[in-house]
């Protein structure tokens, strides 16, 4: 059952990602990307990351992609006349490199996993299902809050500084006169 749902979401995600990359219109690309993000959210739920799934929808689909759409519409790039795709040579190169990368990563994953996808190594600290149990006990938010605000407090604070810098930068860039 879980496998079926997993491969369903994965298939949708991959197909939508491909379409996102290959559609001519920027709006269509963005929408296919949104679909990919949704499928990924589904995958996250299957992988016991409910909170991340919600945030994925909230931040990625709900905020970042809306921002992308907003800019596309603002610049009226929705219907690009000539394609912004590269020529046949470029497409060939892109496909070649993409496939090459996919193969290499795939191989890498197989190596790291000890020769097969199904094999579960005992090197990991958590037994199967443990994370789901923790999530059940502490709540989806509580499970993340603990490491986030204890172990990763400094990165968290630095992220806030980064966001502040981004805000300032965006304002400076977007405002003609300050």
């Amino acid at each position, binding site marked *: 059952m879980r496998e079926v749902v997993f491969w369903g979401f994965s298939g949708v995600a991959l197909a939508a990602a491909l379409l*996102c990359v290959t559609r001519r219109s920027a709006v269509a690309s963005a929408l296919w990307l949104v679909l990919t993000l949704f499928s990924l959210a589904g995958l996250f739920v299957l992988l*016991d990351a409910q909170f991340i799934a919600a*945030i994925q929808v909230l*931040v990625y689909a709900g905020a970042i992609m809306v921002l992308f759409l907003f800019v596309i519409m603002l610049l009226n790039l929705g219907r690009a006349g000539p394609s912004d795709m*590269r020529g046949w040579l470029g497409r060939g190169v892109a496909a070649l490199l993409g496939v090459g990368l996919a193969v290499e990563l795939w191989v890498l994953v197989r190596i790291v996993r000890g020769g097969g*996808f199904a094999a579960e190594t005992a090197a990991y600290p958590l037994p199967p299902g443990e994370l789901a149990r923790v999530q059940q006990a502490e709540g989806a938010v509580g499970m*993340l809050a603990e490491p986030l605000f204890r172990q990763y407090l400094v990165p968290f604070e630095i992220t806030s500084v980064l966001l502040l810098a981004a805000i300032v930068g965006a304002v400076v860039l977007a405002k003609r006169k300050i």
Partner: protein
Amino acid sequence: MLLGPALGVSALLFAIGVGGVLLRRNAIVIFMCVELMLNAVNLTFVALAQQIGPQGQVIVFFVMAVAAAEAAVGLAIILAVYRHKESVNLQDVNLLRG
């Protein structure tokens, strides 16, 4: 336990994202392909978090924050470029040329 398959899917997604960056000329679309790559990595983190602990999910949290910052600044840059060049096609944008 869907760790292996998830890692495989993530690898494919990442490759698609890289291909997209190579394939497209529209700056915004390239941006979206970068987002795709980030998401592929997120999938890896979440998949591994199943066996390594919730810290993996915390990293995803940071990736998202960085992605949000990147989107804000990147789109602002694209807007600024568009204001000058009337285009977001990267072939028209070669300010880096020496």
